[in-house]
């Protein structure tokens, strides 16, 4: 998975060698440490950005955001849902909210209760995690092989993130 950093402040960034991914459409700053290449196309002289595994990158950005403690805004909710290609009705149903209530949370007039937001973060964390190709690949391989050292490390990291962020 791509390495992602989120940044809260408007001014400055965390480092010079990081790519600021403005075109992602996230309502917060996203810096990418790898997985991005910028080349100039000789025939058109255009600057072309090449991103490896864009859907996986979006899932990684979402995962980083839901682990960040700052309250989720309506724009964040909209971005997360779009990035994971989820339908509003499915998200509302998973949270036991009416579609109208969830829609108002996305558009601004309403906010989620603390308990609902915690449930939302947990569900999104798991959803984004299962979209990581490392995990999908490991699940496929686990049906025929014993888990590799890399798979075990990945599972351990996920468990640590989850426990640190969501355990009582």
């Amino acid at each position, binding site marked *: 998975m791509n390495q992602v950093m989120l940044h809260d402040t408007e001014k400055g960034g965390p480092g010079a060698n990081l790519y600021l991914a*403005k*075109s*992602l*459409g*996230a309502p917060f700053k996203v810096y990418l440490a790898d997985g991005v290449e910028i080349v100039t*196309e000789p025939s058109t002289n*255009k*600057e*072309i*950005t*090449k*991103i*490896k*595994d*864009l*859907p*996986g990158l*979006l*899932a990684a950005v979402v995962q980083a955001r839901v682990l960040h403690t700052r309250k989720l805004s309506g724009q964040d909710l909209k*971005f997360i849902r*779009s*990035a994971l*290609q989820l339908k509003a009705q499915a998200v509302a149903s998973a949270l036991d909210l009416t579609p109208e209530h969830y829609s108002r949370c996305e558009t601004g007039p309403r906010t989620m209760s603390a308990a609902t937001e915690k449930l939302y973060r947990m569900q999104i964390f798991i959803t984004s995690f299962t*979209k*990581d*190709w490392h995990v*999908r*690949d490991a699940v496929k391989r686990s049906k025929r092989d014993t888990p590799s050292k890399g798979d075990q490390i990945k599972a351990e990291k996920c468990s640590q993130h989850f426990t640190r962020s969501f355990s009582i």
Partner: protein
Amino acid sequence: MASERGKPQRVTHPEEQTWLRGFVGYHCRDCITEFCEADLGGLSLVEIVEAIAHGDVVSSEKDEFPGAVCAVEYRPEKSRTLWVSLRFVANEERLRVLSAGEKWESDHEPSHVA
């Protein structure tokens, strides 16, 4: 398949649609997405991925290499339609966004043509 308003819609380019949805469907680990920021017509990459995942391939032309140049349309809201023109190279798992934009119900022309 059904359109956004529930009306059945004929899929005219099923192969291309399957390929493109597979591309954004977390199945390719080495897939490359290429774009020039000026060609995105104000759309974000999230909107483009959403359009590919849920939209319809409305036109397709075979290219000289394995793959095609396709146009995708997606209507996230009743009055707003996103359109994306793409070239995909199937054997390299590479997708190039050629141009993109949005049009509103009252518009007859795309808001941006790159």
